[in-house]
């Protein structure tokens, strides 16, 4: 079998459609976009954050697999480097054993193009991609997941994990309707809160990022061993003004801007984990050193005022993890995995604490999906 991996262009449209048809027929829930141009981060002149898609083509010009690279500048141990996120690999090998080699070829090709690679998300260590990355010697870690319940009845009635057994379901309903659950959760979340609320901290909802975000970036970027460039220009690309879903918050303490938070307020519908809850997600954030707690507190209050049932976030860096824990967030099971290639792991000088010193959030993943 001869497979060539080439950049995707408009000439591949018919072959992509046939590929999608074959893998859907084989039971694969994912498919390639119909558009040859990446819809989220297309490559444009002068832009250093962009996606590129590559296709695995066989000798009969059929598509047998694909992957995407999201190129982005990261500050790693004080040095700005362009690295890439290995995204959405899809192989016909998942539905036809004859193409088992394609997944391996995609990964090898990506590493050849950009040795400093990472993968983010992926669901569970048991899934094929994380297992393959681990076999290839990538370093793996889960980015911790935190949640804070705002409406106890909605939480207990919707969390899929609580519906897994009749006893749990019955117990949660009894607790919800007698008020016991509210009391227990409130005490638990209150006990976790370690600091007083700063009275002069306030949220300003803004439509975009500008110079003030650059000041935050310059002031704190060296506190992290690995962090994606989060200056105003990059944030305007990631969280564009014309996307009304993103809630952009500028956090002030007195007159000083101490940080920013990007969040989503999503009404779920039959979501596999959150049922029909209204979920506030703290997608991304950055703060001056020491401002993390106030930023999380302010963002959570903002989302609570909007009426969300639950606030969730994934945070890797120890200061942000401490900030969410001290705000009464509880830690839940995480399905958000960070994997780093051998070259990137070496460059990071990863030791036991990985990823405690890296600032990785939902904002560093596949884009405004799964949120």
């Amino acid at each position, binding site marked *: *079998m*001869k*497979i060539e991996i080439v950049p995707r262009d408009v000439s591949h449209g018919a072959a992509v459609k046939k590929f999608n048809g074959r893998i859907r027929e084989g039971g694969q829930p994912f498919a390639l976009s119909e558009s040859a141009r990446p819809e989220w981060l297309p490559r444009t002149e002068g832009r250093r954050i962009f996606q590129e898609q590559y296709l695995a083509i066989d000798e009969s010009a059929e598509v047998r697999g694909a992957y995407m690279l999201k190129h982005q500048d990261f500050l790693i141990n004080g040095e700005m480097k362009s690295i890439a996120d290995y995204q959405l690999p899809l*192989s016909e*090998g998942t539905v036809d*054993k*004859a193409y*088992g*080699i*394609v*997944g*391996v*070829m995609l*990964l*090898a090709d990506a590493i050849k193009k950009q040795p400093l690679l990472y993968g983010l998300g992926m669901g569970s260590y048991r899934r*094929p991609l994380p*297992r*393959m990355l681990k*076999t*290839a*010697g990538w370093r793996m870690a889960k980015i911790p997941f935190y949640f804070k319940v705002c409406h106890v009845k909605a939480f207990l009635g919707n969390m899929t994990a609580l519906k897994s057994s009749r006893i749990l379901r019955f117990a949660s309903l009894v607790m919800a309707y007698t008020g016991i659950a509210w009391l227990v959760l409130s005490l638990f979340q209150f006990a976790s809160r370690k600091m007083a609320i700063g009275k002069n901290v306030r949220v300003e909802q803004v439509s975009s990022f500008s110079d003030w975000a650059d000041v935050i970036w310059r002031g704190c970027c060296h506190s992290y061993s690995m962090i994606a460039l989060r200056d105003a220009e990059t944030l305007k690309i990631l969280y564009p003004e014309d996307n009304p879903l993103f809630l952009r918050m500028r956090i002030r303490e007195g007159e000083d801007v101490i940080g920013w938070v990007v969040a989503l307020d999503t009404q779920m519908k039959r979501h596999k984990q959150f049922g029909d809850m209204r979920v506030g997600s703290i997608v991304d954030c950055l703060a001056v050193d020491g401002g993390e707690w106030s930023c999380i507190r302010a963002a959570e209050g903002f989302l609570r005022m909007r009426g969300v049932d639950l606030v969730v976030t994934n945070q890797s860096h120890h200061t942000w993890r401490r900030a969410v824990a001290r705000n009464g967030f509880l830690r839940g099971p995480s399905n958000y995995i960070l994997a780093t290639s051998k070259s990137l792991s070496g460059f990071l000088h990863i030791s036991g604490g990985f990823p405690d010193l890296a600032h990785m959030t939902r904002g560093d993943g596949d884009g405004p999906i799964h949120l």
Partner: protein
Amino acid sequence: MKKSEFLAKLEQVLELKHGAITGKESLDAVAGWDSLAIMAFIAMVDESFGVSLSPGSIAQAKTVEDLAGLLGDKIEN
């Protein structure tokens, strides 16, 4: 390394019983020969033989014999 030892290592990669692979099989017929197994095979060959196989060369292999052939004189018949 003797060919029988190579086959035993391949069986370990594929989590098959000892003796399950004779060497004549078509790779299509080998249970568990999927992308994960291929990646594990590449890692095993790198570790045991110090040979870095490219996925492209494995794509050309149709049988277990062909896989052994990729290692040239590192495997004694």
